[in-house]
């Protein structure tokens, strides 16, 4: 038990995310290049970058979907490569694609995830109901997801990622394809999540507005490396007076807004946008 207590202590003291020379190569292409990053608990963190900058690969590694080819990372104190199950118990993940099952109801989608996350039987109903209520979906819980709007699907997916009360939530482009109203609703819920539960939120985005409004700390990625890191205000100040996040982005990435991204990625992003829109 002494060992157990030590680990509990380590978990409490650990950063939400800590990477050390984390790298991923696909053949000759280095998608993520010796990434050193520390995200404290409770922070709202934004990862920016153009297509192919390495954002998605980074998220895939941190969520244990993809093993790194070099370096290492800890999520809430657990190693992503050697303690993957421990990491998975403590994180929630909302993929960029539409990942709620359209052939099931909202509640059924939640119950499935509750079971896969080993939420005790007696708590599953109440947790699903709470998650629906938190995301403002109580009234449509019994309806098929096929009938949901894009914003509702996104909120349901976020609800799915919260059932086991994760310490860190990863969101890959959470508002892509949403109209401004739906987008605001998602932003509000993410903020509320952080404020009420102290959840660490890490999101990737293309949307400079989103990064500016939501995130306390921003990392701009370019060619698999972090080229700028800090609060939006500081980053803007560093670029110039009256600079916007767009200016920051262009400044640090050399204006290369769209140079990477495979056909498959682009097709996926457009499909997601179409299905949510």
């Amino acid at each position, binding site marked *: *038990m002494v*060992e*157990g207590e030590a*680990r*509990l202590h380590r*978990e409490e003291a650990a950063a939400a995310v800590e990477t050390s020379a984390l790298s991923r190569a696909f053949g000759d292409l280095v998608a993520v290049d010796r990434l050193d990053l520390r995200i404290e*608990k409770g922070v709202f963190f934004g990862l920016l970058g153009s297509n192919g900058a390495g954002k998605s690969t980074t998220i*895939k590694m941190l*969520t*244990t*979907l*993809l093993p790194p080819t070099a370096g290492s990372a800890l999520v809430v104190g657990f190693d992503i490569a*050697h*303690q993957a*199950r*421990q990491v*998975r*118990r*403590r*994180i929630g*993940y909302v*993929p*960029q*694609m*539409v*990942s709620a*099952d359209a*052939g*099931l109801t909202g509640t*059924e989608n939640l119950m*499935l*995830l509750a*079971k*896969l*996350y*080993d939420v005790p039987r007696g708590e599953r109903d109440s947790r699903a109901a709470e998650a629906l209520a938190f995301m403002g979906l109580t009234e449509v819980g019994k309806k098929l997801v096929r009938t949901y709007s894009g914003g509702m699907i996104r909120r349901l997916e976020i609800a*799915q990622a919260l059932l*086991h*009360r*994760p*310490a860190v939530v990863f969101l890959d482009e959470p508002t892509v394809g949403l109209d401004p109203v739906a987008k605001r609703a998602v932003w509000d819920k993410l903020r509320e999540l952080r404020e009420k*539960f*102290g*959840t660490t939120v890490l999101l990737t985005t293309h949307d400079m507005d989103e990064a500016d409004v939501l995130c306390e700390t921003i990392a701009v990625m370019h060619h698999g490396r972090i080229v700028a890191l800090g609060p939006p205000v500081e980053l803007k100040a560093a670029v110039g007076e009256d600079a916007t996040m767009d200016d920051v982005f262009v400044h640090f990435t050399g204006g290369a807004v769209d140079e990477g991204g495979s056909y498959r990625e682009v097709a*996926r992003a457009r*499909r997601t946008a179409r299905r949510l829109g």
Partner: protein
Amino acid sequence: MKGVPIAKSPGHAGRLAVSDSGVDAAASFIRHTLAIAEIEVRKLMRDPTEVFTRSVQPTLWLLVFGQVLGRTRAIPTGALTYLDFMTPGVLAQSVLFTAIFFGIAVIWERDLGILQKMLVTPAYRGALVLGKAASAGVRGIAQTVIIYVVALALRIHLRFGVLPVVGVLVAVLLGSAVFSTFSLIVACIMKTRERFMGIGQVLTMPLFFASNAIYPIDMMPGWLRVVARVNPLTYLVDALRSLMVQGGVSAFGYGLDLAVQVGVLSLLVVVAARLYPSVAA
């Protein structure tokens, strides 16, 4: 952080994170498996169209192929009429054809993001795979019901009674699980829909014809007999033939039939559980 589920006994590293014993881990494994299979049952109940469209093919085999070939009396089927002989074969074929394309669901789910979401949960990989296998079993059982109805209409001499019927259901579950898991492995290797569909077509016919489904193994040339003896479909048909129709005889015995299905399934699940995560990467 408050409310984060922390392991009861954090001394255990890795696999048994949330549980104190192997019993809890096993319960968790079974729960994950059933959770995946339950989705399939719910979807099937909501929209059973596919069960009916898939029943056209086996009906044609019995109605056309079976009736015509039965008249020739060219195939030595012992005490059974040809239709009686081939009915278990057609059920096995239906199981095979339904299960062999099951893997494409994984490619769909990968493209949709459902797979990634499942893989980020702490669910056992083996349970995710076995859950898919059980889902295929659910479909297989739905097919079985339809084929029994058609067979009754054609006055095929079916066996009824608790043991034979339970035996057929177990055989269909296992057979569906074997071929759907095989399909899953193929999907994990092929990774795209187009390539998968191509290979799926290539695989089904040899599996079907190099088996005892519509003619006895004894009729085959020597080399084909060898192939048929290592084909898991042969053992499924063998068990079904004796369980499903009156006077049907199992050539290899239920023990071997069962052992082959369970053995092959175990091996395939282990391989599939290893390959499964690579689809999402």
